[in-house]
């Protein structure tokens, strides 16, 4: 990748970068036409990002695919730190997979001109998450809708609808989606993984990662610490905080939100940190030296445990659980769960397995029975089964990381006997569901007999003929 850098105060030859130094470039960015792999290093005070974005677009570049690094983000006194930061960003950009029109929210501030006619700032685009229909679980799962603090997501006619103008791109839906269907092209779990991995491969010494809000103010970093930005720290689940430790970082810190756009961000981040520490402690890893409140010098050596997968992905909690070994730790922010079903309340309607976005719950009809089975290693504790269950108290999710349960794998939670159709021998419904219907119908024996003794097809046939 070719870099174009602004400042004449840095000797770029000392870095291991293919840099074309163009002092003053920030004030009037000229985008080269002869390369499709370009990155920019600019001055915070001079670089007009909106202007650069327009220029890039005009020249046929996808601005989201072009890395821009501010000099303030680089430690100018240390070529090796500078190279590591640039390597991480390059690695992140390599994981960028493009955007679709649905991901770009136009921002066009309106102003009144001298003649009182409306004038608009030419557009810039804020990348926002949007559900990818090809992997959205659909079928009633509304984990993203439930997680959105801005009411920008809605479920209508069997599909997730997204109000881009109302979206603040806080990223909570991205981390809440159990199937990884919410995609913000400017920030994907794959990019986050690539960035930390890029740091790990570029830094020889033990290093720490400070996870910070991309919109919040940046503060000074200590030697051996690097910053990794997420849309908002309020989106962090506990396993994302542990994640960097399993990719090569030796310590993690989570910065305060600072942007004030999400009032409860710090509280949520704090809860996630508390749970992540409990998880490490339960795995006999001293959490205090790994997840720190204040940046510190003299970092301990690497954990010696690696993730066999992406800890930031939709199934990242399971990846982290597999890496950290036998633990049993519970709490409201647990990223996995164990489901139990109350036998005397469940009617076998299959709503839970229908809405389960990860197929952790599955309804299996076997020889006159309906079994609902559960795989703890797929459960993300999203509670969609609890919220959508029509029978109050029939299903519970215990938010807990239980590696023993995960190792056991899929097991049957409940078996329902299925009633047979008196006419064709097919399936009518689970006996428990019919009993529930009988309670609802009360004394209407005629209707009850027809509903409970004939399957849907036979009932329809009888009505027609």
């Amino acid at each position: 990748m070719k870099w174009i850098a602004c400042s004449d105060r840095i000797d770029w030859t000392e870095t291991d970068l293919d840099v074309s130094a163009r002092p003053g470039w920030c004030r009037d960015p000229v985008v080269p036409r002869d390369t499709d792999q370009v990155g920019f290093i600019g001055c915070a005070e001079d670089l007009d990002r909106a202007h650069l974005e327009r220029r890039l677009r005009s020249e046929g570049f996808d601005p989201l695919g072009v890395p821009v690094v501010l000099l303030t983000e680089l430690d100018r006194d240390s070529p090796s730190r500078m190279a590591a930061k640039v390597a991480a960003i390059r690695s992140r950009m390599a994981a960028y997979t493009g955007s679709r029109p649905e991901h770009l929210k136009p921002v066009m501030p309106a102003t009144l001109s001298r003649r009182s006619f409306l004038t608009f700032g030419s557009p810039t685009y804020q990348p926002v998450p949007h559900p990818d229909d090809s992997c959205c679980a659909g079928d009633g799962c509304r984990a993203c809708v439930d997680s959105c603090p801005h009411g920008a997501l809605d479920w209508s006619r069997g599909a997730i609808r997204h109000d881009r103008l109302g979206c603040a791109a806080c990223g909570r839906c991205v981390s809440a989606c159990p199937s990884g269907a919410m995609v913000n092209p400017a920030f994907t779990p794959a990019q986050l993984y690539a960035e930390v991995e890029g740091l790990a491969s570029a830094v020889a010494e033990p290093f720490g990662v400070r996870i910070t809000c991309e919109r919040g103010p940046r503060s000074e970093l200590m030697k051996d610490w690097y910053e990794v930005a997420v849309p908002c720290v309020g989106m962090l689940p506990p396993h994302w905080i542990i994640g960097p430790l399993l990719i090569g970082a030796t310590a993690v810190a989570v910065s305060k939100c600072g942007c004030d756009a999400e009032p409860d961000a710090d509280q949520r981040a704090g809860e996630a940190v508390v749970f992540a520490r409990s998880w490490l402690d339960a795995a006999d890893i001293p959490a205090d030296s790994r997840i720190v409140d204040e940046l510190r010098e003299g970092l301990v050596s690497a954990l010696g445990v690696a993730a066999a997968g992406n800890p930031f992905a939709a199934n990242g909690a399971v990846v982290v659980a597999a890496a950290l070994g036998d633990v049993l730790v519970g709490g409201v922010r647990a990223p996995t769960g164990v489901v139990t079903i109350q036998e005397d309340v469940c009617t076998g309607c299959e709503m839970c397995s229908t809405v389960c976005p990860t197929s952790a719950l599955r309804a299996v009809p076997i020889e006159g029975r309906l079994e609902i089975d559960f795989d703890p290693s797929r459960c993300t504790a999203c509670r969609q089964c609890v919220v959508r269950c029509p029978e109050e108290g029939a299903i519970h999710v215990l938010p807990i990381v239980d590696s023993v349960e995960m190792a056991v794998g899929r097991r049957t939670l409940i078996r329902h006997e299925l009633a047979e159709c008196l006419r064709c021998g097919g399936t009518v419904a689970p006996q428990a569901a019919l009993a529930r219907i009988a309670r609802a119908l009360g004394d209407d024996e005629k209707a009850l007999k027809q509903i409970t003794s004939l399957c849907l097809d036979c009932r329809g046939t009888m009505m027609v003929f």
Partner: protein
Amino acid sequence: MSEMSGTLSGSDLARIRQGCYRVLASGFGRPSAELTAQIRAGILALEGLGMGVFSFAQPMRRWDMALSAASPGDVATEYVRLFGSGMDGAVCVPIESQHLGVNLVGDAARHAGRIEDLMRRSGFEADLDERPPDHLAVELELASAFCGAEATAWADGGSAEKWLEWLRELVDVLAMWIPGFAATVGERDRVGVLAALGGATAAFVMHEYDIVRVLIGAAAEESG
């Protein structure tokens, strides 16, 4: 538009959008060498108006490149295969009721009626030839007409609100089916031109879905 100052007037913005709708509508006409030349000239003119700074510029350019690379004869064959006869089961006609309808008989009338009603209320009349009112080309032409009226309203210092509201009515429904339609065309097109046209239409319509709301808000603020 002034790229350096980074501003554009409401009227200029409406003219660019009007042109995009017009060019895209032409794309859904029967392909010929003459039409290809007209479309490419249209895209070039839009570049001159400053289309480049918008997110839909890149898909429009991809369409332009696909047009320049393909022979009009091949495109015409593919046009018939996808939008006409439906050979190989590849039919994907650019007609709204075919994509949003459940009961096709009733829905065709309902969707056509909606467009005709919109035309009547806004004072436009279509020369429909063989196309139904809910044909995408007709809808895009109607949207283009709304943008033209909107541009005039901005330029005269009047309120463009009513045109924008009508446009929103139209675009809200387009945004429901165009992305899916474009994806299907993208999968089935063997030449690439109609796939690129679908991509450009989807990008532009999704952009319009947001920008019309932004403009309505700005217009309401100005008049209020």
